[in-house]
């Protein structure tokens, strides 16, 4: 993975040729690097560590749900008397695990891996650029992300523990909860949001300005289109949440009342606040980001799936333009649906009808994108490589996640299903066997580009099948828990008769989750052990897109000579040619 000593002259921009090589010291080459590939790897590895940590929080939480009130063997004692007195989980700790699982997975796991990791590494290569438009801003975005992430994790060790008011952090609860962990959550969010804002502007300018000669917009790989739309979502949706986080910090530290009405009585005491604020203001500001955020979670994944499907069906993607227009429409619509998360807050019929309607409309581009992907299989010659297994599984999993959004987006059915396990199942299907599977596909697919080596395919297949089985074992039963009326975020669901009636599902889900964790071991082993494999051919997947024109791994500056693009991105199986792929960058006809 080290940058090779010979780097393309494209890297030097305005410098004149013939100057001596300047070797950077280690800390500038690998720590405070401005090279998009190093930064991409920093993001990816950091995000994978955070994903694993966030998953561990859930594995702990699942013990309490499967065996409420039972002491957790061995580990229970290790977590201390305030979190797990006598080895039994405390309700406050349960709430911390829940809030931080969501926060970490979304803001420190998926987005940094999908955008910061894959986006940073692959986009400049796929457009034929030597780096991002603003390499130093790129570095700054990672170095805002990492402290933000570390601060979030450190909050567990503060008195009272980490934030515990949900990843949604609704006031007044988040403000009357006096622990420092709640305040630190807000500061960490400011850092994490800033990181995304810096990154998004970089992506937009890079994609607009630095495309190689001949690479028009409609010759871009769909992955780049997906990242492009994603960047607009990040840029435009995050600022209201950053503002809201600052406002909540001020409520906590400066005695303001942006989100607090007057007259609160908490634990029998009058709460001293100026009042005049509204808890619903936070909800609007939060969801104004958080709805586009879920499209940030899915779009890069769709981009990866597109690349892997085109490559492994050996034919052009079906409906490329339709995919591009749908992604843009999806991005636009994502800004006008946010209040479907707030249908039960006392919303009037006019406003709720507006948001129901936009929510139904936004399902259409998703349906179109899924249809295009499925149609892309028709007439192909499908190679079931490990990336293709994950990309193929993505399709029905995303279908389940997307379809189950329909009863939630209709207000009348949402009355019953809101804040139940049905919601949890819905969004996890999209992001877990959806996005995370796509990210695995991307790791297996681009590993040879990044390292020059191939991951072990047999281990990859074991990873895939075990993950597929266990992940469905985790999330499918949750739909049934929701239909039975079980609320989410309950420390002990057996308090309620309708919870007791289906408690067996919790046991099934928890064991599936622990099985899913074990299923990742072959992957972790494979990821590191494959670094010692023999080097493989430059373009082992026989792909057509520009990143495969660079050496594997690419040196600083990426391309030995600046690439030129001659054709569309997925020219596979053109009639009358001796090979079944015709790279974008190959001059010969």
């Amino acid at each position, binding site marked *: 993975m080290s940058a090779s000593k010979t780097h393309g002259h494209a890297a030097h921009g305005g410098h004149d040729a013939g100057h001596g090589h300047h070797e950077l010291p280690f800390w500038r080459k690998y720590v405070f690097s401005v090279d998009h590939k190093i930064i991409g790897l920093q993001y990816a590895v950091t995000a994978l560590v955070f994903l694993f940590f966030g998953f561990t929080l859930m594995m702990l939480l699942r013990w309490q749900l499967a065996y409420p009130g039972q002491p957790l063997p061995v580990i229970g004692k290790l977590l201390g008397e305030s979190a797990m007195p006598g080895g039994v989980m405390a309700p406050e700790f349960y709430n911390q695990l829940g809030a931080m699982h969501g926060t970490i997975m979304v803001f420190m796991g998926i987005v940094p891996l999908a955008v910061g990791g894959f986006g940073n590494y692959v986009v400049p290569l796929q457009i034929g650029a030597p780096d991002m438009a603003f390499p130093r801003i790129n570095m700054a975005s990672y170095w805002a992300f990492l402290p933000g992430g570390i601060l979030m994790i450190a909050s567990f060790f503060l008195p009272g523990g980490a934030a515990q008011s949900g990843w949604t952090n609704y006031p007044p609860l988040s403000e009357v909860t006096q622990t420092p962990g709640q305040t630190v959550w807000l500061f960490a969010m400011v850092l994490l949001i800033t990181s995304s804002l810096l990154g998004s502007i970089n992506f937009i300018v890079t994609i607009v300005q630095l495309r190689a000669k001949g690479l028009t917009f409609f010759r871009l790989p769909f992955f780049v289109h997906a990242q492009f739309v994603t960047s607009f979502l990040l840029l435009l949706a995050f600022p209201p949440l950053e503002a809201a986080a600052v406002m909540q910090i001020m409520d906590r530290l400066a005695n303001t009342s942006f989100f607090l009405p007057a007259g609160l009585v908490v634990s029998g005491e009058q709460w001293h606040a100026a009042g005049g604020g509204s808890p619903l203001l936070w909800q609007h500001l939060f969801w104004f980001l958080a709805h586009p955020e879920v499209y940030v979670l899915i779009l890069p994944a769709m981009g990866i799936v597109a690349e892997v499907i085109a490559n492994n069906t050996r034919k052009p993607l079906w409906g490329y333009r339709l995919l591009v227009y749908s992604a843009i429409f999806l991005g636009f619509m994502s800004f006008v649906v946010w209040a479907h998360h707030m249908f039960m807050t006392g919303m009037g019929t006019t406003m709720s009808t507006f948001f129901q309607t936009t929510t139904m409309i936004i399902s259409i581009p998703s349906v179109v994108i899924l249809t295009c992907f499925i149609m892309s299989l*028709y007439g192909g010659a499908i190679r079931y490589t490990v990336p293709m297994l994950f990309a193929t599984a993505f399709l029905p999993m995303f279908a389940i996640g997307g379809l189950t959004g329909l009863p939630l987006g209709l207000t009348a*059915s949402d009355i019953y299903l809101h804040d139940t396990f049905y919601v949890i199942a819905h969004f996890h299907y999209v992001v877990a066997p959806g996005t995370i599977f796509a990210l695995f596909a991307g790791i297996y697919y681009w590993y040879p580009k990044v390292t020059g080596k191939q991951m072990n395919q047999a281990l990859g297949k074991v990873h895939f099948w075990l993950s597929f089985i266990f992940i469905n074992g985790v999330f499918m039963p949750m739909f049934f828990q929701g239909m*039975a009326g079980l609320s989410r975020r309950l420390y002990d669901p057996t308090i309620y008769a309708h919870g007791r009636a289906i408690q067996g599902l919790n046991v099934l889900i928890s064991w599936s989750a622990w099985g899913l964790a074990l299923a990742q071991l072959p992957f972790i082993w494979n990821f590191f052990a494959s670094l010692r494999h023999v080097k493989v051919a430059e373009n082992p997947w026989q792909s057509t897109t520009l990143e495969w024109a660079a050496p594997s791994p690419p040196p600083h500056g990426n391309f030995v000579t600046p690439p030129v693009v001659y054709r569309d991105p997925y020219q596979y199986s053109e009639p009358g040619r001796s090979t079944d792929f015709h790279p974008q960058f190959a001059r010969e006809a």
Partner: protein
Amino acid sequence: MDETKYGYWFPPDVSTHGVQIDQLIDIVHWFMLILFVGWGIFFVYCLIKYRARPGHAATYLPPKAQFTKVIEVSVIVIEVLLLFWFSTPVWFAYKNHPPPEKDALVIKLVAEQFAWDFHYAGKDGKFGRTSEASMSGDNPVGMDPDDPDGKDDIVTINQLHFPVNKPVIVQISSKDVIHSFNIPVLRVKQDAVPGTRIPIWFQATKPGHFELACAQLCGLGHYRMRADVLIDTPEEYAKWAAENAPPPAEPPTSAAPENQQGAPQK
């Protein structure tokens, strides 16, 4: 409480408006199932028929697919139907046509960490004045002890009594954080947002003993924010109201007899 009626699908529906909600959920799920199975069959067909094997090459040109347009248009049409034929009318009818207050039993609710405080107007049908400033452990709804209208009010904690076959309006508020009033068997859910008073209505069709569960994370006791929902026959309700009415009071002390926190509630 009869636990055998709970299982792996909807709990029983004992409300007048719930039938339409259940119907909508069922119809949407049939639609989802048809889409998923339809896509799924085509998907599996392609995975098998178009797998790479010796002698099989991919086709460069896209298939001329009219049926995808048909599918997209049908999806749009069905979603429009779901939205404007099923969901919106049900929602509008429920939200915009509450029963008139004079025909209903009106109950005020103050949600708090971690209990549901119900306030009944009593025999005179008038609620005593309440205020946040008067709220305390003994006086959870903050009743003004000097208000004569409040003398016959009933306050219960975690006990919601009402008669069957009569509209009930609950005026929902919260004294501290956001909670959510959620009775699955009545198909009602409404957030209790501090600083607001939000009315919700329902009418029960069968008597029984059910549960209210908080549906919005409200702190470490969120899981145990449970109330008993007792749907009485009219006779049972009248008996309960009479038994729990406060005795005719002399000039009150601050620990007014309305606040029966320790006394057993049926």
